């Protein structure tokens, strides 16, 4: 390339701020794009707009008092965050959990996972310019929020699990409503399939866009549906079974080539698997107490401890170091979206700007979780 040509190219380059209030960043995320015409040369995410230092809060209060914080990282799918934290403290302090409580945890966590996937579905299609699916998604999600509200008391930032069990037992009304939801949701697939999955515009916007290779996923530590879209069947629920997940029969849907369409398909098929888990759990729900006796002041013995669960976006890992008091000496929260988003500078190099929107949406980002 001649020097003059190079200079001309340089002149055509400009910087574009996508966010922090852009609708398709799904939160307060800024991406500084170096552009040449319609093409993105270098997308650099800028984080920390809603950084609240949850880890410091975890280290400066007794472990029980951190429970509400766990629901405020990923507010779309808060129950698995509850689950990871209570399980971590239970592992550390050697607390037994009644079987019925574990079943209730699984049922509510899976309901929350479906709600998260439905919200993602609507929001993603909105990113791509389709307005109707979010109305369908919200309709279905509303049923789940009503069900969860009836036992947890809140609609979004749940604080329902307790060390050694759950806050209160589920009632017949809950079981009935959940069964009705499972039945209803199965009927809705046909609608989603007709509306979205077979929509030619949707396929054109997602097929062969943003391909994540298995090696790339490994280098960035990607997890969750974003990883499974690339064909790696890694799910903490199967790979590192916790709670009562080993007792249920469910599959891990995987994609083939790791493009946006595969990530979409994985989430859609995961909804069905979550429904299967809920059904089995309701059928086999054991009788008994839902909370074991736990000392008021839980002492965390010296030493470190790790606990991983599968949140809606991937592997959530809590790492705790105790020092003999009830306040953790160190609490690290490994959130899935953080690692998932970190591949964007590599993935978004040299693509069209509308494709970047498609990729960002397909990652299912929740920004408060990334910023913590």
């Amino acid at each position, binding site marked *: 390339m001649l020097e003059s040509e190079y200079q001309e190219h340089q002149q055509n380059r400009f910087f574009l701020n996508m966010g922090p209030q852009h609708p398709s960043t799904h939160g307060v995320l800024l991406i500084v794009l170096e552009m040449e015409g319609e093409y993105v040369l270098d997308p650099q995410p800028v*984080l*920390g707009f809603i*950084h609240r*230092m949850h*880890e*410091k809060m975890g*280290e400066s209060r007794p472990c029980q008092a951190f429970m509400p914080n766990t629901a405020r990282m990923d507010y779309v799918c808060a129950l698995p965050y509850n689950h990871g934290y209570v399980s971590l403290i239970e*592992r550390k302090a050697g607390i037994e959990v009644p079987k019925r409580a574990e079943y209730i945890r699984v049922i509510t966590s899976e309901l929350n996972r479906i709600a998260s996937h439905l919200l993602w579905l609507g929001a993603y299609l909105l990113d791509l310019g389709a307005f109707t699916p979010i109305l369908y998604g919200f309709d279905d999600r509303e049923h789940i929020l009503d069900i969860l509200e009836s036992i947890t008391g809140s609609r979004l930032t749940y604080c329902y699990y307790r060390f050694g069990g759950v806050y209160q037992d589920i009632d017949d009304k809950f079981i009935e409503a959940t069964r009705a939801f499972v039945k209803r949701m199965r009927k809705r697939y046909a609608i989603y399939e007709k509306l979205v999955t077979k929509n030619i515009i949707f396929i054109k916007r997602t097929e062969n866009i943003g391909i994540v290779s298995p090696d790339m*996923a*490994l*280098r*960035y*530590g*990607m997890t969750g549906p974003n*990883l499974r879209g690339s064909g*790696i069947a*890694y799910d903490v629920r*199967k*790979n*590192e079974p916790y709670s009562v997940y080993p007792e249920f029969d469910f599959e891990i849907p995987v994609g083939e080539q790791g493009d946006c369409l595969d990530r979409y398909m994985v989430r859609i098929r995961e909804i069905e698997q979550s429904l299967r888990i809920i059904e089995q759990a309701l059928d086999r729900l054991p009788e008994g107490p839902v909370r074991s006796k736990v000392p008021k002041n839980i002492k965390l013995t*010296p*030493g*470190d*401890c*790790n*606990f*991983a669960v599968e949140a809606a976006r991937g*592997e959530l*890992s809590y*790492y705790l*170091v*105790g*020092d*003999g008091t009830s306040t953790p*000496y*160190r609490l*690290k929260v*490994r959130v899935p979206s*953080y*690692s998932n988003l*970190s*591949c964007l500078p*590599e993935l978004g190099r040299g693509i069209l700007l509308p494709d970047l929107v498609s990729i960002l949406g397909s990652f299912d980002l929740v920004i408060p979780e990334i*910023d*913590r």
Partner: protein
Amino acid sequence: MAKETKDYKKDFLHQGFDATETAYDQRGFHLEVVLDVNQVRKFAQTAYELGFYLVFVTGFHVRPDEGHDKGNSGLEVVYQFARYDQLYRIKACVSVPNSLEVPSISDIYQGADWHERETRDLYGVVFDGHPNLKPLLLAEEDVDFHPLLKEEANLKSLHEVSWSSEPPKAVKGEAEAESGQ
């Protein structure tokens, strides 16, 4: 689901790393590796070649040892690795020297880029060789503010916060004296 499980302890021992098996039920990982600061890159390379993915990188602040073991800043960098194909978690930790410099692994695991920037934000560890060590979660003007460093009064020694089966002798003596009273 019965998956083939392999123990990777030998692979790491063979490469000269100080690896010890840990009780998974208690601690949530299978192998603990204590690294020397100049082993970090070799370890990351070995883990990458064996097919591990990086779970996180973070810091840890304890009271610096006095007397022996000079050049110890009291900071530690903790890495966690795991596998996609089987259940195997590794915790690797490296003691940060007084210069606060630890080699960066962000060219081996590109995902470490952000984790290292976050650790620099929160603890002030400088990752040598990192291409872009700017504040990530904190504001750019907070370049010298490290919120997770503990105050002197809250610091504990490493042996007070580890599983260690045999505490240092001086402490053991004290503990016995206390229990005798």
